[in-house]
């Protein structure tokens, strides 16, 4: 099998006596969607924060693109190609949808220290950003300030921003949250094609989406991964049924 894009080994993180991340190991391979599921408070977001670099882990290692990124900050990891979306939409509220994406294109081009040329006349930024908005179906809302977008539209904008970074791996934190059945269905179809651009580590509560998309699933309970396997493995696993899925499967 090819080198994993993202490889986490024996990761631990404690807050006082609470072990939020307890000896977690996890790989993300090229072309796959790896879903991370678990009940509320299992430590999914804490894990995402450590991968993205907003939290420092206590021990263990995180390798991204074959490189140990443990000591690198958030922006450095993003530059290496980690495209993250936030569980709660995190945008620049005064900027239009288009300018939000243009900023990501600009970041991807690696050129924020240009002081004279107006961005709005910069076709290389504008056209790419419009392409990305078109791909997530948000082009007709390009000029609306992101603070005025609906919840679902902000989720789409989050994805467009991640796309604009041309990432080597996507880190999607509950992209379906609050989207409604129609929106979720469309996004599921979209993510299915996205995996060919870059592998996806998907944190998601929507089990229909997870079972439809995931090549592999890891189940996180109280900071520990209790099982990793294919959709069928996870459905059959008695530990998982007991701890998480209950009788609903």
């Amino acid at each position, binding site marked *: 099998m090819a080198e994993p894009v993202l490889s986490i080994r024996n990761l631990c993180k404690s807050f006082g006596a609470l072990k939020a991340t307890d000896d977690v190991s996890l790989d993300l391979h090229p072309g796959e969607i790896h879903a991370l599921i678990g009940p509320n408070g299992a430590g999914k977001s804490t894990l995402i924060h450590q991968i*993205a670099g*907003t939290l420092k882990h206590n021990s263990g290692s995180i390798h991204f693109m074959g490189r140990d990124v443990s000591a690198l*900050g*958030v*922006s*450095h990891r*993003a*530059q290496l190609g980690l495209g*993250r979306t*936030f569980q709660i939409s*995190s*945008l*620049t*509220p*005064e*900027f*239009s949808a288009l*300018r939000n994406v*243009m*900023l*990501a294109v*600009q*970041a*991807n081009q*690696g*050129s*924020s*220290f*240009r*002081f*004279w*040329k*107006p*961005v*709005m006349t*910069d076709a290389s*930024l504008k056209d790419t950003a419009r392409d990305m908005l078109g791909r997530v179906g948000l082009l007709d809302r390009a*000029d609306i*300030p992101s603070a005025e977008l609906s919840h679902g539209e902000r989720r789409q904008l989050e994805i467009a*921003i991640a796309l604009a*970074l041309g990432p080597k791996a996507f880190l999607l934190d509950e992209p379906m949250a609050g989207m409604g059945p129609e929106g979720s269905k469309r996004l599921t179809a979209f993510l299915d094609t996205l995996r060919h651009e870059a592998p996806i580590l998907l944190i998601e509560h929507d089990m229909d989406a997870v079972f439809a998309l995931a090549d592999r699933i890891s189940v996180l309970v109280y900071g520990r991964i209790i099982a990793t396997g294919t959709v069928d493995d996870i459905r059959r696993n008695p530990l998982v049924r007991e701890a998480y899925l209950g009788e609903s499967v």
Partner: protein
Amino acid sequence: MADRERLVNIALALIVPACAVAAHGMGEPFYVTLATRIAILALAAVGLNLALGLGGLVSFGHAAFFGIGGYAAGIFATHAFNQTPLLTAPVMILATNQMPVIWLVSAVVAGLAALLIGLISLRTSGVYFIMITLAFAQMIYYFAISWPAYGGEDGLSITMRNGFPGVNTLNPLSFFLIAYGLLLLALFAFSRLRDSRFGAALQATRQNEVRVASIGIRPLRIRLVAFILSGMITAIAGALFADLNRFVGPSMLSWSMSGELIVLIILGGTGRLFGPVAGAILFVLFEFALGGLTEHWQLFLGLILLAVVLFGRGGLIGLLAGKVRHG
């Protein structure tokens, strides 16, 4: 709305020189000096507006940069007048009384100071940032007070206003035009920078630092460069201010000077291109009109400031031209 703001800006850009020229024509140099004071304070505030308005960096220490510019003008003027060198060892540096050189020196020294202050203070945010910038400015303030070579507590009088190639700077209108020309240049540079890639990153950093970091832009670098540019512009204004008053003293470095610059921007409209100009006009007119009636004019200024903060966040520009819209 953008068109209306443009009209307001043009009106503000014309009103100050119109008043200065009219006052000069009527033989009222005092009012020309008042207009010059407006232009210089506006220039200082354009600098601060870059950090505060676009970057959200509430620097309570910009008097440091203002004063550095002022002392540069004062020190150069003194040495040039006495015909003594600035420095004898290790190399001989002669003083000049030419403003462009003094502005350059002011900007470079203030830029270096801003680099050092920014590297430390920009690691904090909110109230801590305000307090650390204040602390640095106070350090420089007390340094100036305890430096007897250049006047110490008494400050430094500038016997001869510094010169400008081909212009008689002692003529009040000529000096006004120099200050006003620099203000227009700074406003033009501010507008280009605001709409540039750097400006986009800076404004985004103010709105959502985590977002900016997560797309791979380092907020600290963006802020540091903005803080340095901001300090450099304010320092040039400081040099002009010393030349205007023909005096520089520790008061130019005081915390109340920093506060005045912030007040100016809030009155005019935070982050707006002509906010500093509108604010400087209001501030100087209040100072002049109310200051003539009562020495407690700042009480009334405080009340007006309170009203702006409570009811009209956009300041005067916001009142005249409406809310800001980003393209």
